[in-house]
């Protein structure tokens, strides 16, 4: 168990190191020097000024050294400065994290609460009209772009309430906060719930075919007890892994959803940073996303071990 954890943590470090190299190189092969862009956009003409920008940004240094400076800073919590705002990157990123984190958590809660029960119902009622309806629903959830769903919801708001919910940095009550985030969370979580539903259904169908379910029935347990006490726990196991993978996917949905609903979170900020070619920002944001994804996967695997005795007791 402990050795497994150590192995996992080491692999995590290797992966993150790989991400840092990949993102660093990707951003250096950009056509056009960043200094050129800044130089042009600032409307400067003096070549000496340009030299100064290049030197300020450390762009005249050899690539390995530039990389080392970044990595070294990263390890010491110094993420450098934004090209655009010229503020420390960390001060720009940190306040945006809780906004996205809350939205993501809400979306995931929605996805699990809707996806798992509907998947179970769909499996238990296999090949009924209800099952077909739920399957079409989940397939359409996987087919709709989440930003379009968001726009449709906005459209419905206009039609029914005559207004669009506006993001408020400091809502007064918890309920106001929930009401504000519920719509974006549902529109980004719909895809995840559709995926979870599909997986729960197929996993449940597979479990219901297994011998121990028949044993449980032979003991005289009711269908409800067989489905929920025996089958569901087994069926949920593979779904847990999916929830981990889906959390990573969720970030993609968050990028567009935050854009549609005008939410100043960290996901939308990545797009803005890319548009402004604010590469120190992009670089660090991507690292941040990678850390989150890798950690979530680790947590999910550990959770899996807690739930499944077969893994818990195997040394």
């Amino acid at each position, binding site marked *: 168990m402990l050795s497994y954890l150590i192995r996992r943590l080491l*692999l995590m470090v*290797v*992966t*993150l190191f*790989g*991400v840092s190299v*990949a*993102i660093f190189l*990707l*951003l250096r*092969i*950009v*056509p056009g020097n960043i200094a050129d862009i800044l130089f042009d956009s600032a409307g400067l003409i003096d070549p000496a000024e340009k030299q100064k920008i290049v030197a300020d940004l450390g762009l005249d240094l050899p690539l390995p050294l530039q990389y080392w400076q970044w990595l070294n800073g990263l390890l010491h919590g110094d993420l450098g400065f934004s090209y655009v705002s010229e503020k420390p990157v960390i001060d720009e990123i940190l306040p945006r994290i809780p906004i996205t984190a809350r939205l993501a958590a809400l979306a995931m809660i929605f996805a699990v609460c809707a996806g798992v029960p509907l998947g179970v119902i769909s499996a238990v009622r296999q090949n009924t009209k209800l099952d077909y309806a739920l399957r079409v629903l989940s*397939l*359409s959830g*996987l*087919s*709709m*772009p989440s*930003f*379009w769903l968001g*726009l*449709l919801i*906005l*459209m419905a708001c*206009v039609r029914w309430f005559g207004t*669009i919910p506006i993001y408020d940095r400091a809502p007064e009550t918890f309920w106001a906060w929930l009401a504000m985030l519920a719509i974006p969370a549902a529109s980004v979580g719909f895809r995840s719930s559709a995926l979870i539903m*599909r997986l729960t*259904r*197929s996993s449940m*169908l*597979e479990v219901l075919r297994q011998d121990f379910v028949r044993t449980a029935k032979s003991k005289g347990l009711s269908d409800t007890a067989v489905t929920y006490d025996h089958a569901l726990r087994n069926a949920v196991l593979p779904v847990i892994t999916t929830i981990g993978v889906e959390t*990573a*996917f*969720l*970030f*993609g949905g968050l*990028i*567009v959803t935050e*854009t*549609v609903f*005008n939410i100043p979170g960290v996901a939308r900020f*990545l*797009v803005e940073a*890319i*548009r402004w*070619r604010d590469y120190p920002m*992009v670089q660090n944001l*991507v690292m941040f*996303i*990678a850390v989150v*994804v*890798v950690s979530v996967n680790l947590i999910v695997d550990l959770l899996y071990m807690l739930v499944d005795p077969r893994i818990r007791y195997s040394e």
Partner: protein
Amino acid sequence: MSTTTATGPVTHGLMSTVWYNARRYPLGVAGAIIMIVFVLSAIFATWVAPLDPFSTNAKASLAAPGGTYLMGADMMGRDVFSRLIHGARVSLAVAIGATMIGSGVGAAVGLACGYIGGWFDLLVQRVTEVFQALPLLVMALVITASLGPSLRNTIIAIAIPLIPIVSRVIRSNVLSLREMPYVEAAKATGMSEWRVAIIHVLPNTLAPLIVLATAQLGSTILTEASLSFLGLGVPEPYPSWGRMLSESAAEYVRTAPWLVIYPGLAISLVVFGSNLLGDALRDALDPRQRD
């Protein structure tokens, strides 16, 4: 009751096999029809579209659906319906281009990993983990940021994150195929490794590859739409469905809903069709993944 389980169709030829499966998977047929309509309108866009998708008309700015403009007109007075028909080309190009590159390279990498093994396999696996540490859209965003926006770069940006997804599946497929008795038997008869690979292993990875590639079609279309929606995908003047929905759509929600509804409907319908088709292909070709 092993005697009663279906053992699959008795094949009398391609047409009867197709017919047999078509009756078994009606939803798959629906998906195939959607995809065929989509592909045909992309290919024959110039003939199908009633108006020129590029010609602007100040008088028709934000014209409501009806009359000349079946699905209304955009800000610049361009016909939405014609732009949607032409937009199918972009979606199709990206879907096919990215899926082919991603699956092709992915399959090659997966085969190589399964066959060469050792340090090469380890290295590729580590690289795969790096890819998996980033969501697909983030990867695609960063790659387009680095390559610059163009149709070709959008295809590349979407294809690259597909490679590890495909290579992982093919790799595990190859590893399990290599243990199969008939492959062992082929080796025992003195067939060379490469001959075994080409004659026995490669054809058997084809079914999962087709299933996987079809399943990815929808996700590539969605990724392209997202990229273009964010303004980092296929640039003007190509009419891309995603870009037709781009940010300014938030204000059209109030003033011109048709600019929001139709492009989104087009994306959803095509992705829905490809998902239906993908599910049916999975059930028909790869019973192990059946649910």
